[in-house]
């Protein structure tokens, strides 16, 4: 099985502080756990039968750069021979602007990291404060400047529809991102997750979400601005300059198999998706005791997997190509969803040239309402 896996994800569950909207698997202010984390990760990696040669490796979090330059190097030393990026591999690390320094960039180079995903979120001080972020807009400018000279591929995360944000503020954030020459931009409308501080504040009425009409306007504006600047929207939330798409994420949406390590990390073998236990301390304890850290298992039938492939494919702007889909899944698109596709085309939510089906912009903006018909 391992021989066909070409992608790996490693979850680094540490942050300086937890932002109010965040429901990811992480611990804030527990730097004392670094050492145990490295040891546990080593144990989990040793469970691989054989080393994996990687097309892509993605270090996500949390904030992997919160480990510091030495910590990042230490992390890579834990990979030993288990994870072997090929010379052409895309190796991405998620970074907080406050952590990126000359020595951090040096560490990136030393480890073979060639792509940085920077958690910018906004370039407006009020929005950053609203979002509970710990960096300032000036930090971002300085870091983008450093990274620009480093030769690394730079991706920027942007949050829109933050409480109190206006259309104009969104436009200015995007303009500045473009002027800072990011190769790749991920744009997320703020999602209100159960259990977050934001969720509670909304329930108590101390935070008010942006109304849906404005949210849509903001998102459409961003799509237009980025397209005009030469970024192509290749998935709902992702925009790239030519040839700068994230190969790792494309592997997810292509339903290729990948390995994953770290608390809450999910792996996929082509049919089953298993998710590690989410609690950092439990994940550490179990690994140190040589116990299993498997949590949820999502086992799919061949048809279930094909339906999932259809959804993930339609979230991509290139859409779903009928022959390629059949080749990869063994199912004909039309056997799975012919009627729905016809309805979508009739309603203006999709285009179908007989070979390829892709969602229109309005279909994409409402796509969650479409999936119940095909899943």
């Amino acid at each position, binding site marked *: 099985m391992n021989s066909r896996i070409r992608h790996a*994800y490693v979850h680094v569950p540490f942050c300086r502080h937890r932002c109010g909207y965040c429901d990811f698997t992480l611990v804030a202010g527990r730097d004392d756990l670094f050492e145990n984390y490295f040891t546990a990760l080593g144990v989990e990696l040793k469970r691989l039968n054989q080393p994996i040669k990687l097309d892509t490796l993605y270090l996500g979090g949390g904030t992997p750069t919160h480990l510091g330059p030495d910590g990042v190097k230490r992390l890579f030393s834990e990979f030993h021979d288990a994870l072997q990026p090929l010379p052409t591999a895309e190796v991405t690390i998620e970074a907080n602007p406050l952590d990126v320094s000359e020595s951090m960039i040096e560490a990136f180079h030393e480890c073979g990291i060639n792509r940085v995903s920077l958690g910018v979120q906004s370039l407006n001080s009020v929005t950053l404060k609203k979002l509970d972020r710990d960096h300032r807009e000036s930090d971002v400018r300085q870091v983008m400047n450093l990274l620009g000279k480093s030769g690394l591929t730079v991706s920027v995360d942007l949050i829109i529809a933050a409480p109190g944000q206006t259309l104009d503020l969104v436009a200015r954030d995007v303009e500045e991102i473009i002027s800072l020459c990011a190769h790749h931009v991920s744009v*997320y*409308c703020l*999602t209100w997750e159960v259990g977050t501080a934001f969720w509670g504040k909304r329930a108590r009425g101390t935070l008010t979400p942006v109304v*849906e*009409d404005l*949210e*849509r306007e903001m*998102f459409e504006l961003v799509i237009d601005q980025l397209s005009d600047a030469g970024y192509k929207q290749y*998935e*709902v*939330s992702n925009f790239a300059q030519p040839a700068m798409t994230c190969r790792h*994420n494309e592997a*997810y*949406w292509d339903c290729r198999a*990948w390995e*994953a390590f770290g608390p*809450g*990390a*999910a*792996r*996929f073998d082509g049919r089953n*998706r298993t*998710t590690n236990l989410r609690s950092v301390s439990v994940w550490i304890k179990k690994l140190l005791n040589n116990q299993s850290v498997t949590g*949820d298992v*999502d086992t799919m039938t061949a048809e279930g997997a094909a339906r*999932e492939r259809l*959804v*993930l494919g339609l*979230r991509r702007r290139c859409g779903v190509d009928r022959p390629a889909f059949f080749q990869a899944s063994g199912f004909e698109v039309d056997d799975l969803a012919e009627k729905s596709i016809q309805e979508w085309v009739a*309603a203006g*939510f999709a285009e179908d040239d007989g070979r390829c089906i892709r969602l229109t912009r309005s279909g*994409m*903006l*409402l*796509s*969650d*309402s479409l*999936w*119940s018909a095909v*899943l």
Partner: protein
Amino acid sequence: MPFDCKHIRNFSIVAHIDHGKSTLADRLLENTGTVEKRQLKTQMLDDMELERQRGITIKARAVRMEYRHNGELYELNLIDTPGHVDFHYEVSRSLACCEGAVLLVDAFQGVEAQTVANAYAAINEDLEIVPVINKVDLVHARVDEVLLEMEQSLAIEPEEVIRASAKTGIGIDDLLAAIIDRIPPPQGDPEKALQALIFDSHYDSYRGVITYVRIIDGTVTKGQKIRFLKTGVTHEVLDLGQFVPQRRSCDQLAAGQVGYLVCNIKDVEHVHIGDTLSVPGKDGAAAVAGYKPPQRMVYCGLYPSEGENFEELRESLERLAINDPSFEFQPESSEALGFGFRCGFLGLLHMEIIQQRLEQEADLDLVQTAPNVTYQLLLKNGETLEIRNPQDVPDTGQIEEFRQPIVRCNFLVPVEFIGPVMQLCSDRRGVFLKTEYLSPTRAMLSFDLPLGEVIYDLHDKIKSVTRGYGTLDYELQGYFPADLARLDILVGGKKVDALSIICDRRDADRRGRAIVKKLRGEIDRHMFEVALQAAIGTKIIARETISALRKNVTAKCYGGDISRKKKLWAKQKEGKKRMKSIGSVDIPQKAFMAVLETGAERQ
């Protein structure tokens, strides 16, 4: 052991709900040694677990006890009665089997609507009333005041009232003595031709229908042929006996006694509550007076969520009807809901009970339409129509007269709530009859009200305007003409037949507005705008709009997100499955009750 009539007492316990009837029954069973204390599970009469364990159903509606009083042994038969207004008729049949009734009143709650209704039902049957004030040991008991209420409302002498606590056993022996001393023995002749009154029945999967009877005259023995007077059918008695409280066979039942008969009857519909049993041939006795067929007052549509479950629903309804002949159903179809059944019930509670059993026993997803009462229509051509479904109302041009059922409602309320109750009833087009003060703190108000208003939301409303202290009971007065109309609801321009209601024309604007407003909250936004309209005929009287969804898309969908998101989407799919599509609008099942639930916005 044969008991002569002089040593038999037949009685019921009548009370308002929660006044301690079941606990009192338990205490009687215990004090008479019918059930030993260690076997006594609380609320013996209500407990079905025992029956479930044995895989049979005994409705323990009649228990035989023995009690020694002044040196002589007596047979006491306790005949249980349903407490709720829906079952008035069954109550009256049970009471017809008794010579006395224990009237139980809670020492804190006092006299309530069903206390009065049930006490009058017993008085109307000429029963000897043995009044008991229960829970006298409660800290908050207000014994003197409640005694005054009983005197004022029911002319009961305070000194006749037995002070008791069913929970702790205070006064139970006094009560048993009073039952024997005050309640007259049955007047019957075991030598005369058999005359027995059927007061209940149930279906047992092994033995067929078990018929509950009170022998008025004559004697019935095993092997004897008996005739059901209403149907004229003759059956052989295969087994007979009494409930002690489990079934116990005996050789004969004679005049005055209460027990059960098993006659190899496979269909409970052939056994009518209130019917009379006698011997075949010309020597048979006459029927006991007062038999009435069950009267269904409330109808609603029941539809399977999934059209293909229609046959399963039919089978489930048939199974339920086996044990409950007062429930009826007929296939019908609705453009909105497909194929289903129009079901008739004695009242709202009866409807809820049937629904619950259907859900528990059948595991079917159902869509229920809002209940409506039956209406009478006099057409211009002289024909009279009974309307059980608003869809069946013909064009206004054909209608000469539209009649609705009117009930006489008695409300028992603390005096400080008289004003709000008056207001509520006049809002509901009630006709005020009288106020009676039962004590300085409690009063009884009487109104004639449309039954449609009562089932709409009156019960909840009374509870809320009296902070839970008000109770009501009602009795059908008959059908009377009114200015009624059918109000239709359109969703996305299409009429949803299952949402039509019949209402007073003067209320139509208000009801229409309330319904579309409620629907607006029940129906999720769609990818297009959805118009909700209320109309009488072609005239639109209210409108609301559900704006289109503008944005609904998951932002992050990476490796670890996919399973989680998929679960979310799958959940939406499940939710959608339980909705009905009208045109391309998904209407959740709850919305079909919206026409009833608008009460909150009414005032």
